Structure formats: structure tokens, C-alpha cells
């Protein structure tokens, strides 16, 4: 900085004045910044227990250092890798189905001409989002049980001869998790797209119509490019959250029989840390997951920038 005294000069003079001029905006951002420091940055100090042999009876500072031994341990833990597989697998399918699903639904809703019907569809599709997993999971479990409505239906239609054990079959859990999540979140996922669609200049559609473009062509050439920015932002966010598996959903839908395919990182960390008291171990896993997630965010940011030559942040 000392090399550029001339450029620095005007900034230095006006900083407080500029802050003062912006007092209105500053007053909006500072509470958020302070809360973030308070609740997101300060607690990060506790992360050091991943490198220490911490028990609840020690102070964080007082626990003995053990270096990377917890990291080494979970890398060797066969359970960790099966948990990793479930996490990535379920998240991958959720992304593959849920991500385009929300875009397609948003486009469909956008094309509905009747305002009342549009509202109706939107409300119905948002609804599950506002119910907690405890309620929704309970519904899913009841529907899929031996005598639940799905099995009864399939039996009545003579498609199967004896009830399918949906919840007890390890091979079916991923599907159940992905589809129930899709059902819950797809409507909610459309909101941002619908909002950005309203920003598309209607004259573009008129011009396209004049040129004889079909509805489908309009969608491909106007709607989708119009919400491209939003798509890439959402993609970055969802890729970043790929490993941030859904704890509520897992805890509700998990049972003794599908355990081997339903245990995901969050539930694993919860069990290891909070329930079994292996805080250091769980923290080490948590740090590892955070680092991978950070890399994923950077990677997808880099990727989307390559494609759209614009960065969303």
C-alpha cells in the first residue's frame, strides 16, 4: 500500500465522511456482520478440538493436543466411507432430479395463463415445504408401511402379491429420500426462478412470436437465458451444500433396517458427537466436510464463470 500513496490519499480523507453518508445502508449491514462474527466466527475457535483429545470435562484450551490422529482415524474407519457414499449418492440424485425439476416446474407455472389456477398450483406445491420433516416423514412412513395406501393400491391393482417392505429395504432408501425431498422442496425451489422470470422483458416474447417461434423455442431461447444468472447461483449453492445432508429427514426416515444406506454425514456426526460424546472425532469429520464443501463451491463458481463469463459473487 505504501507504494501507492497518491491513490490512497483520497480514500483516506473521505472514509469517515463516506461512512457517514452511507449511515442508512451501513446501519442495515452492521447488525448482520456483528451477528455473523458472534455466531459464525467466534465459535470457530472451538474447531481446534479436532486436533485435541477433548472430553466435556476439559476446557477447550486445556485439552492435550493430538495432532491429526482423529483425521487419520476416520480415514481408516470403514463406516465413514459408507456414510460418505450415502451422503454423496443421495445428494447427487437430489441434485440431478431436484435441480432441473424446480426449473421445469417454474417454467410450467410461468406459462399458466389463468391467474387463479397459477396461484392454486403454486400454493399446493409450496405447502409441503412448510411442514416439518417430522410430520412429512411420518406421512411417508405410514403410506409406505405394509398396510399403507401405496401397498394397498398396488395389491388392489394386482401389481404385487405381497406388500413391499419399502422402509425396511436398504436398496429403496435412496429413492425414498430423494423423492420425498423432491416432493417437499420442488415448489419452494421455483420461487427464485419465477421472480427472475418476471424481470424478462415481455417485448422479447412478442418479438419471438412475430418471428414465428414456438412456445418451446421461446422457453429455450428467452426464458432460460433470462434466468441463467439465477440458475448458476442456485447451482453453486446446491453444489456447496452437497455434503450438508439433510439431518431432519434422515433422523425421521432412518430405521434399524435401512440404517446402512440411510446414515449420512450429518446424522453420523450427530451420533458420534452429541450422542456418543466423541466430540473431537465428530469435529474432525465436520472440518473435513467443510473443506470439501468449500472446494466444491469454488469449483462450481469457477465452472459457471467459464460458462457464463460472469461471476455471481
Amino acid at each position, binding site marked *: 500500500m505504501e507504494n501507492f500513496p497518491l491513490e490512497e490519499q483520497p480514500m483516506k480523507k473521505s472514509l469517515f465522511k463516506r461512512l457517514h453518508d452511507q449511515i442508512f445502508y451501513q446501519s442495515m449491514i452492521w447488525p448482520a456482520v456483528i451477528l455473523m462474527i458472534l455466531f459464525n466466527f467466534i465459535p470457530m*475457535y472451538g474447531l481446534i478440538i479436532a486436533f485435541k483429545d477433548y*472430553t466435556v470435562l476439559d476446557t*477447550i484450551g486445556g485439552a492435550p493436543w493430538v495432532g491429526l490422529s482423529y483425521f487419520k482415524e476416520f480415514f481408516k474407519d470403514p463406516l465413514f466411507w459408507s456414510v460418505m457414499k450415502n451422503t454423496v449418492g443421495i445428494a447427487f440424485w437430489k441434485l440431478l432430479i431436484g435441480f432441473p425439476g424446480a426449473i421445469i416446474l417454474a417454467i410450467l407455472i410461468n406459462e399458466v395463463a389463468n391467474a387463479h389456477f397459477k396461484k392454486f398450483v403454486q400454493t399446493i406445491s409450496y405447502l409441503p415445504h412448510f411442514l416439518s420433516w417430522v410430520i412429512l416423514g411420518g406421512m411417508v412412513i405410514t403410506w409406505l408401511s405394509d398396510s399403507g395406501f401405496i401397498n394397498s393400491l398396488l395389491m388392489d391393482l394386482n401389481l404385487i402379491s405381497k406388500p413391499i417392505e419399502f422402509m425396511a429395504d436398504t436398496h429403496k432408501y435412496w429413492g425414498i429420500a430423494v423423492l420425498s425431498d423432491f416432493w417437499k422442496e420442488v415448489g419452494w425451489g421455483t420461487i427464485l426462478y419465477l421472480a427472475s422470470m418476471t424481470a424478462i422483458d415481455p417485448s422479447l416474447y412478442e418479438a419471438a412470436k412475430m418471428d414465428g417461434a414456438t412456445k418451446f423455442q421461446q422457453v429455450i431461447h428467452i426464458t432460460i437465458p433470462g434466468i441463467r444468472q439465477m440458475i448458476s447461483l442456485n447451482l453453486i449453492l446446491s453444489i456447496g451444500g452437497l455434503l450438508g445432508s439433510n439431518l431432519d429427514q434422515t433422523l425421521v426416515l432412518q430405521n434399524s*433396517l435401512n440404517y446402512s444406506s440411510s446414515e449420512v454425514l450429518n446424522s453420523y456426526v450427530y451420533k*458420534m458427537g452429541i450422542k456418543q*460424546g466423541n466430540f473431537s472425532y465428530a469435529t474432525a469429520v465436520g472440518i473435513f466436510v467443510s473443506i470439501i464443501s468449500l472446494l466444491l463451491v469454488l469449483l462450481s463458481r469457477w465452472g459457471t464463470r467459464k460458462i457464463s463469463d460472469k461471476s455471481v459473487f
Partner: protein
Amino acid sequence: MKMKKILVASIAALMGVTVLTACGKSNESGSGDNLPKARFKADPKTPSWKKDKKHPASLTWYVNFDWYKRAEWGKDTVSAQIKKDMNIDVKFVVGNDDKLNTMMASGKLPDLMTFDRNLAVAKDAKKFALPLNKLSDRYDPYFEKSAAKPGTLKWYTESDGNIYGYPSFSTDAADYKAGNVVGDQAFIVRKDIYEKIGKPDMTTPEGFLDALRQAKEVSPKTDNGTAVVQFAATALDIQNGGDGAFGNTLQDFLNIPVTKNGKWYDRDSDPQYIAWLNIFRQAYKEGLMSNGQFADNDNTMKEKLSQGTYFAYLHSNVKGLNEFMGDNNTRNAKETYIAVDGPKNSKGQDPKFAGGSISGWTNTFITKNTKEPQKAMELLTYLASKYGTMVTTFGVEGKTYEMNNGKAQFTEDIEKLRNTDVATYDKKQGMGSYWEVSNDPYAISKGETPANTILQMVQWSSDKLAPRFEIENIDPTPGTSLARNLTALNTDRVQTMVKVLKASDDKEGQKIWKEYLTRRKNNNWDKIVQTRNDQVAKNIKKLK
């Protein structure tokens, strides 16, 4: 520049805050040497609570079980009596492991704490608990001299010479000799069906399967129209490695030893055990067991028992059946459950169960945070002593029980209440609610019997009990990587059990189980066995 300065300053401030938080919780280094003086000269022959009535105290007691419920202090017969005797108020707080860990981490502890002795924090007791021996020396020598059980005290003396926790339900060798122990395992059948099929012998594999098949024929439906399930066993808890009754309980029934030549014995690899697992597999294959076995939790299964859903049930915790058996008997007294001889090994030997352990179940600690160490010690003395045990088990003499030939007998209305309405009994009377440090075998010797609903089941096992103190606390210390290996193994073990039961034939079942036995090596199995052997050797030495 200014920007940079502000940044640096705020980072410095941040660091300051974090350093402060680090110092926030400093452990008091009280080792029990600088305790406040006793209010009077304590006497080994009289419990101090008798002399300390003038001093009122209010203590908080944390019990690490969500389900632990009782009436407010002083509202039930038992706590009213304790309050009257001691001039003390106790506020019970309950919670689960999460709450316990948070409490421990915050360092703000109540006066007394009770939790499962297998928790990691129990092994670190010296960090938060006052040594009971020092408290006893200073305030209440009666505790060590008379109230506490000598065998238990010796067993609980740590390498530093101190005793930190005192157990519930601790049973020593003398109790076994005197017959003051009860079993908790049973093989129960629905009496009406059992009699209808001619009370067959169910101890051999063939007899067992035949009986189930016949039961299916004679009685396919329950009173409410659902299908009778011919066989079930205590619910599995796969996520926590809980083997229900398919593991240790079945092995006990088959009288497979727990140690051989002073070494821990791998009962899971015993051919007798593997053979019987496969008998259960056959039962499942023939539709004599249901899928509920793998999906239902313990409470659901017990509720089904109270509906008469199962014909035969292998159970690991008879004491927990009281309420459900009561409900079943009220529903249809003809469909009551009785214990009969269940699976036996090929030599036809009787089962062998542990009737209680010297380590007991929970441990109770007096914490370093207590402001009333003397009163807390007196309370433990009271509850652990013979007198206190009588109060917590039978209530007040002349009011809730009478002595008859040296045995306590509940008065008629109390006896009736506890056999018909357990909930009101617990709430109004509180007998059995304050078990934290009580002398259970003494209560048995004074005539404590299980409720009528489960009496026959408990009596069935009474001549099949033998101590196995040598295998207590032999698993790796919780919180270590070896303990995590064991947790993973236990989960795998139960999952494998399910796979064996669901296997299509004997050959496949055997193969699945043997693969598991080999697979254990990947999880440091050899080291775990080594730890167990070392501990067994230590225990044998300690018990001499």
C-alpha cells in the same frame, strides 16, 4: 491504511474474546481435601443425618433418564418420610446424554448426579466428583462402615484410592450365596395356546419349531383379529448395537460360558449359538416370526405383548414387563403369559443367567459444585443404608407395610394398588422410585417380590443364577478409538444377525455369520479381545 488498522484491531479484539472464553471455565481443583468442616463430631455408629436435622438443605439431583418420573418431593409416601427424617428438600432434574454433556461442558453441575456407569464421563469422575470416602471420613463414617456394601466399595475403589461413584443395584458374592438376587431373563409363552397344544417341550430345536407350527394352527388370530406371531424376542436396537435377546440372552439360555481358563470367551463363535440362530432363521422362513421383529422398538413390542400378539417370547428384561403383563391380564386373564423352559444347548443343560452385577447399573456422584457436601453425603448414606432401603422399597412401617416373620408385607390396599394401577402407585407412594443407591439385595432379603404379574417369570429363573463379576467393565474405555471400533462392530453384529435370520437356508445363514466373525478383524478385533482379557485378569485379581 485506516481500513487495515481497523481490521487488525477487530481481529485482535476477536482473539481477546476467544481467549477469554477459553478461560471461562476453569476446573476447581477440589480433591476433597479442603471441604468445609463438619457441623458436629461424626460417629461411625450413628448415621449423621440423625444429628443433622436442625440444618435444612435443598439439593438438586440430576438423573440422566428422560423417563425418570416421580411425584414432587414430599408428595409421595417415600419422599415425605425422607423429608421428615432428614429435613431435606431434593429437586430432581432429568435429561438425556445431550443434556448431560452440555452440563458437564458448562461446568455448572447440580449437587448430585446419577447416570449410566458406562458413559465416558463416568470414567472421568475425579474431574467433577468429590471422593465419597473423603466425604464419609469427614461427615459420615457410617457410610463406609455400615451403609455401603463392603464388596461394592472395594470394587469401586479407583487406583488413586478414592471412591467417586456409588452404584445402584449392586450385588456382591454374598448376595448370590444368600439367594438375594433375581433373574431378568425368561422365555414366556401365552398360557392358553401352550395348553391347547399340550404343553410341548420347547427346549430342543425340533420341539421348539414344532410347537410354533402347532401354535399357528390352533390359534392363528388374536382377540382383536390380527395375526398371532408365533415367536419374537426382545426388540433389536440396531443403530446402538442392541442385540435384543438374540445375542447374550440366547447365549445365556444355551449356557455358553463367558470365560474359559481365565480368558474372555468369544460366545458369538460358539457352534451351539450359531445352530440356534439358524433355528430362529427357520422359524422366520416359515412365517413363524414377523417383520415387526426387525422394525418395532421395545415399547411397541411390549404393547403387542399386552395385546396377546405373540405366542412365545424370548425376553431379556422381565422387570420391564410388569405394566404390560398387567394390561394383558386385565384384557383377557386366560391369555396370560407364563415362563417355561426355552432353548437349551444340545446337552440339555439348564440356562445360566447373571442375577445382577457388582458394578450395578448407574453411578451416583456428589459433585464438586455442591454447597452442601455434608447433607449430600448424609442423603447418600440414608438411601444406601438398610433403614433407607426399607423406606424406599416398602414405605412406612404400619402405614404401607407390616413386618411378618422378618419379612415386610405390603398392606392389603397397597398390594392391590401396585398390581392393578402401577401409575397411581408410583405417583402416590413412590416405592421403588428412589433406587439410585439403594441396597436392592437387602430389600429382596426383607421380602421384596416382583409384582404378581411377573412373579412366576422371576421365580422360574431363580435357580439358574450365577455371578459373573469377572467380565464386568472389560470393554475398551468409552471415547477411545478402540471403543469406537467396538461400537461399529456391535452395530455390524446386530445387522448381521438380521441377515442371518432372513437368510434363505441354513448354509447361507452360517456363511453370513462366519463372514462377520472374520470381518471383525478389520475393526481392531484382536486388540479389543486383548483389552478384555487383560481386564478379566485384573478383575479376577480384584475379586480375590
